[in-house]
C-alpha cells in the first residue's frame, strides 16, 4: 500500500513538474514568436517571467539579455548580470558581457573595470585575454583591445604572444608602422610564417603611406639583423612593390649570398627588372651574375639578357611610326653608336662564350638588326646574317627572322634579285608561319616594284589583297593603288620606284633629286601626289626642314583630297615642333589638321601634342 502511495505521489509530482516545464516551454516559444516578429516589448515581458521562474536557466538568461539589448534597457541588463555574478563571480564570459553592456550604455570607465575584473579572475589564462579583447573589438574599442593583448603578453611573459592579433588591430587602425613591428615579431618567432605575414602586410602596401611605413620598419629591422633570410626576402619584396629597383637589387644580392642560391635570386630579379623596363638596374643585375657566378646555369641567358638590356636602353619609343622605320628627330646615329656599340660588344661576348647555342644565334641576329635598322651598316649586318645562315641553321626561328632581314639588307644594297631570292625561300619554307610567309610575299612584290616589274608586283599582291585579316593587307593595298593609278604612265612610275629605292638605301640627296625632277616633269601627273609625300620625308631626314615644310604644304594645297594629306599635315607640324623647335607654328599646324581633317585618325595625336606643348595637365 505504501508502495502504491509512493508511486502515485511520484507520478503526480512528476506530472506537475512536466506540466510546469511544458508551460515554461510554451511561454518561451511564444516569446520567440514575438521576438521574430520584432515585437520586443512583449517578448521581453515573457522572458522576464521565464527568468523569474528559473533564473539559473542559461537560455532564459540569454534571451532576456538579448531583449534588453534590443530595447536598450542597459541598466536592467546590468542588474541581471550582476545578479548572475553573485552565483558565478569568476565567470570571465559574464564579466566580459558586463563590460560590453556598460560600453553600450556609454559608461566606458565601468566597462573597463568590468573587463579588468574579468582578466583578474585568471590572469595566467590566455583565453581570458582573447575573450576580453574580442568584447572590446565588438564595442569598437580597438585601442583598448590592443592594450589588453599587450597586458597579456607582459603577464604571461611572452613577447611574441598575440603578435598577429595586435598587428591586425594596428593595421585596421591605420597604424602601419606598429602593425609591421608586430608582424616582424611574428616572423622572428616563426620564420615559416613568411608568406602569411606577407599577405597580412600586403593589405596596406597598396597605399603609399602603408608601403612606406612597412618598408622603413623592415629596413630598420634588417640593419640590426642582416643575416635573417626571411627578413631579406620581405624587404626585397617591399622594394619591388615600391619599384625601388636599385635597393631591391642590392637586397637580392644579399639574399642570393645568404641563401647560397648561386645567382638564381639575382637572375630572377634581373629578369623581372627587364620585364618592368628598369633597364639600368637589370643590366647591373645581369653584370653581377656574370661576374660572380660564371658557372651558373643561367649564365648564357644572363649574358644575352645583359646585351638585350643595353640594346633596349638605347631604343627610343616611336609607336606612331610617322616616318616608317626612319626616326628623323632622334639623336644622330653617330651619337647613338657608343650605346649600341656596347650592346653589340655584349652580344659578341655571348657568341664567344656560348658558341653553337641558340643564345649565340639570337645574339648574331640582334647584331644584324642593330647594324641595319639603327646604324645602317650594311656590310656588318650582312656579315652577321651570313654567319647565322652558315653556322646556326639548326635554330629555325632565328634562321627565318634572319632570312627576312637579309632580304631587307639586300634591297638596301641594291641587290634586288638576291633579296627576292631570300624572300622566296622564306615564303616557301615549311617552317614559316603564315604571317611570316605573307610578309615575305609582300616583300617579293615590293622587290618587283622596285625593279620596275609593276605587273609582276600587282599579280603577287592579288593573293595578299584577298586576305583581309592579314597584318600586311593594308601595305599591299597601298602599293597596289600606287601601281594601279600610275601604270598608264610607266616611265614616271619607274622614276618613282627608283627614288623609293634610293630612299631605302638612305641616299637621300639622290632620292630628293629624282623626286624633284619627277614633280617638274609632269607636275599634274597622279604620281606627283605620292612623290611629294616621300619627298617631304626625304627632306626631313636631310634636316632641310624648310624644304620639307614647303613640300608638305605643296602636297596639301595641290592635292587636298590626297589620302596622305592629314598625315602630311601631322608630319609638317612635327617638323615645326621637333625640327625647327617652333612651338607656336607647331600648334598652328596641329590646329590646321584638326580644322581640315576632323575625321582623321591623327586628330587625337594632334590634340595630345597641342596640349603637351601648352603644358596642360592631362
Amino acid at each position, binding site marked *: 500500500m505504501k508502495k502504491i502511495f509512493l508511486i502515485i505521489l511520484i507520478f503526480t509530482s512528476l506530472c506537475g513538474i512536466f506540466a510546469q516545464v511544458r508551460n515554461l516551454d510554451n511561454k518561451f516559444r511564444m516569446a520567440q514568436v514575438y521576438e521574430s516578429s*520584432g515585437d*520586443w*516589448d512583449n517578448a521581453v515581458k515573457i522572458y522576464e517571467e521565464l527568468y523569474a521562474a528559473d533564473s539559473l536557466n542559461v537560455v532564459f538568461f540569454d534571451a532576456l539579455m538579448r531583449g534588453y*539589448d*534590443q*530595447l*536598450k534597457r542597459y541598466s536592467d541588463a546590468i542588474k541581471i548580470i550582476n545578479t548572475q555574478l553573485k552565483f558565478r563571480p569568476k565567470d570571465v564570459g559574464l564579466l566580459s558581457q558586463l563590460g560590453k553592456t556598460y*560600453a*553600450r550604455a*556609454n559608461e566606458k570607465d565601468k566597462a573597463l573595470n568590468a573587463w579588468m575584473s574579468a582578466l583578474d579572475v585568471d590572469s595566467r589564462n590566455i583565453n581570458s585575454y582573447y575573450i576580453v579583447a574580442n568584447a572590446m573589438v*565588438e*564595442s*569598437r574599442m*580597438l585601442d583598448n583591445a590592443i592594450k589588453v593583448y599587450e597586458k597579456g603578453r607582459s603577464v604571461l611573459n611572452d613577447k611574441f604572444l598575440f603578435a598577429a592579433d595586435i598587428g591586425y588591430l594596428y593595421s*585596421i*587602425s*591605420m597604424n602601419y608602422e606598429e602593425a609591421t613591428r608586430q608582424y616582424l615579431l611574428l616572423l622572428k618567432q616563426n620564420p615559416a610564417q613568411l608568406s602569411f605575414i606577407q599577405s597580412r602586410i600586403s*593589405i*596596406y602596401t597598396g*597605399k603609399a603611406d602603408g608601403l612606406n611605413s612597412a618598408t622603413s620598419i623592415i629596413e630598420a629591422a634588417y640593419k640590426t639583423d642582416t643575416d635573417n633570410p626571411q627578413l631579406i626576402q620581405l624587404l626585397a619584396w617591399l622594394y619591388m612593390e615600391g619599384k625601388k629597383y636599385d635597393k631591391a637589387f642590392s637586397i637580392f644580392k644579399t639574399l642570393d649570398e645568404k641563401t647560397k642560391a648561386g645567382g638564381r635570386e639575382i637572375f630572377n630579379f634581373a629578369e623581372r627588372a627587364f620585364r618592368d623596363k628598369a633597364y639600368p638596374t637589370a643590366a647591373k643585375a645581369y653584370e653581377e651574375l656574370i661576374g660572380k657566378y660564371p658557372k651558373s646555369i643561367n649564365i648564357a641567358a644572363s649574358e644575352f639578357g645583359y646585351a638585350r638590356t643595353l640594346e633596349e636602353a638605347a631604343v627610343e619609343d616611336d609607336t606612331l611610326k610617322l616616318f616608317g622605320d626612319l626616326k628623323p628627330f632622334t639623336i644622330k646615329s653617330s651619337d647613338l653608336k657608343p650605346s649600341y656599340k656596347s650592346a653589340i660588344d655584349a652580344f659578341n661576348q655571348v657568341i664567344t662564350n656560348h658558341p653553337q647555342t641558340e643564345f649565340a644565334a639570337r645574339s648574331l641576329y640582334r647584331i644584324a638588326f642593330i647594324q641595319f635598322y639603327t646604324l645602317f651598316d650594311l656590310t656588318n649586318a650582312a656579315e652577321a646574317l651570313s654567319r647565322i645562315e652558315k653556322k646556326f641553321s639548326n635554330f629555325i626561328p632565328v634562321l627565318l627572322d634572319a632570312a627576312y632581314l637579309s632580304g631587307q639588307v639586300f634591297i638596301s644594297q641594291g641587290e634586288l634579285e638576291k633579296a627576292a631570292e631570300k624572300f622566296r625561300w622564306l615564303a616557301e619554307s615549311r617552317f614559316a608561319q603564315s604571317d611570316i610567309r605573307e610578309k615575305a610575299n609582300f616583300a617579293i612584290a615590293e622587290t618587283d616594284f622596285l625593279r620596275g616589274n609593276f605587273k609582276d608586283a600587282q599579280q603577287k599582291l592579288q593573293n595578299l589583297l584577298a586576305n583581309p585579316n592579314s597584318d600586311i593587307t593594308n601595305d599591299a593595298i597601298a602599293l597596289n593603288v600606287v601601281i594601279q593609278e600610275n601604270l598608264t604612265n610607266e616611265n614616271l612610275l619607274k622614276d618613282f620606284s627608283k627614288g623609293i629605292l634610293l630612299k631605302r638605301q638612305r641616299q637621300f640627296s639622290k632620292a630628293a633629286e629624282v623626286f624633284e625632277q619627277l614633280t617638274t616633269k609632269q607636275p599634274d601627273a597622279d604620281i606627283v601626289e605620292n612623290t611629294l609625300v616621300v619627298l617631304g620625308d626625304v627632306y626631313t631626314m636631310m634636316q632641310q626642314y624648310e624644304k620639307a615644310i614647303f613640300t608638305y604644304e605643296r602636297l596639301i594645297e595641290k592635292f587636298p583630297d590626297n589620302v596622305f594629306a592629314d598625315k602630311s599635315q601631322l608630319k609638317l607640324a612635327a617638323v615645326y615642333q621637333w625640327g625647327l623647335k617652333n612651338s607656336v607654328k607647331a600648334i598652328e599646324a596641329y*590646329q590646321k589638321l*584638326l*580644322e581640315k581633317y*576632323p575625321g582623321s585618325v591623327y*586628330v*587625337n595625336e594632334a*590634340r595630345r601634342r*597641342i*596640349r603637351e606643348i601648352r603644358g596642360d595637365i592631362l
Partner: protein
Amino acid sequence: MKNKNQMLNSSQADKYRTTKFFSLLLLYARSSTLIALRSLLTAHNSSLYAIGSPLTAHSSLLKAPRSLLIALCFLLLALSSPLFAQKILIPMDLKQSEHLKAYGIAYWSLTKGIEVDWLLNYRGGSFMIDNHQLVASECLVRGVNFEKISAATASQIYADVLDDNNNQDVVRLEKAPKVAVYVPPNVLPWDDAVVLAMEYAEIPYEKVWDDEVLKGKLLEYDWLHLHHEDFTGQYGKFYSSFSTAPWYIEQQVLYEKKAKELGYRKVSELKKAVAREIKEYIASGGFLFAMCSATDAFDIALAAENTDICDVMYDGDPPDANFQKMLDYSKCLAFENFTVERNPMRYEYSDIDIPPSDMAGFVNQETDYFTLFEFSAKYDPVPTMLTQNHANIIKGFMGQTTNFKKSLIKKTTTILAEKEGTEEVRYIHGNYGRGTFTWYGGHDPEDFQHAVGDPPTDLHLHKNSPGYRLILNNILFPAAKKKQQKT
C-alpha cells in the same frame, strides 16, 4: 606732317575715301546690331525666371532707332557670310561628336569671362558663344564640334528660340560655378559618375569632407555633389558582403575616428549632423546634386534625426525598437512615408528604391529605359535645363539606389524622368529655401550593373552619353543666374 590723304594722289584718295566710308558703315552696322541683340537678350533675361512673355524683348526691338533698322538690312547683306562670323554655335544634337566635353568648353569660357548663352531645347540644348578665336581653338583642341555663324544667322536663331510658338528659350550663363564634391579621404573600391564626368569634361572641382562641412566651408561653393555616401551611418550597408574586406574595415575605423575627433559618439550621429548642415547649405542658396544611394540615404538621415536606425554592427548598439514610428518625414527634402529597411544584412536602406528582386518581371538591360519629361522652356526653365538632351529616352542603369518609388515622393518635388508605366522614377528635382536639390538614381549611366571593384568607365568610349549629359546639365545650371548666399 602730312596726313594720309595728302600723301595720296586724287584717284587713290577717292578710292581710300570710298573704302573708309564702307568700312565705317560696316562697323556701324555691326555695332548697332550687337547693341540690338544685347538689348534684346537683356530684356529677355530680366524676365527669365518670372512668369511672363518675351514680348518685352520684341517691343524693345520695335523701339529701336530707324538707323538700327537700316543697319540690320545692311547687315543681312554684308554679314551673312561666315567670313564675318559673330558667334560660335556649339550644337548639342546628333551633329555633336563630343557632347560631354562641350560642357567643359562652356565652363571654360565662363572661367575666361566669356558669357555663354544656353539655347534651351534648340538642337539638343546648344551653346552660343561670342566668336573668340580662343574659344574656337579650344573647341578644336578638345574635339568639340562647333559652327561659326554670322550675326544674321545668330539673330535668326535667337528670334526662333524666343518665338512663342517654339518650346525653346535662351539662358545666359554668367559665372563658372565653384564646384565641391563631398568625398571621403580614403580610397573606396568604386568610382563616382559625377567625378568621372567632370574630369572628362575638364571641369575643376574641390573635395570636401566632414570637417569642411561642419565648419561651414560649403558656403564657398555654388554646387555640391555627394559622392556615393551613406548618411545613415551604416557604411553603405555592405556588411553582409564586405565586412571582412580591408577597405570596409578601414572605412569603419576611419569614420569612427573622425566622429570622435569631431565630438560625436557615433558615426551615424556625425553623418546626420553633416546631412543637416548640407540641408542648411541648400536653404541658403546652394545647389545640391546626388546620385545613387546618397539620395535616399540623405533623406533617411534627416528623417531619423531623433532616432537610432543603425544595428549593432554599425554603431555598437541595436536600433531603437520603434524607430519607424519616430521618423520625421517633414525634415526630408524629397521623400515621405517610406519604411526603413530593418534587416542589417540586406543591401537596401528603405522601400524608396525598388530593388531588381522586387520588380515585376525580369530586369533586362536591353529593355531598361527611362523617359525624360518635357517642360515648358519659357515657363519652367530650370527643369528644362536639367533635362536638355539629344535623346529623351535614356538607357537605364542600376545602383544601390536605382530609382525612387513614385508614391513616396513628396508632391513638392518635380519628377524629371521616369520609367514609363511603372512606379520607378529616376530623376527628380526640388527647391528648398533659396537653393535646389537634384537627385539621379543609379550608379553609372554607361555601366548597367557597376559592381564594387569594377574598373571605372572610360568616357572616351561614351563621348555622347545622354545619361552622363544629365549630370553635366546640373553643373552648368548654377551658372544661369547669380544667387545670393548666406553671409
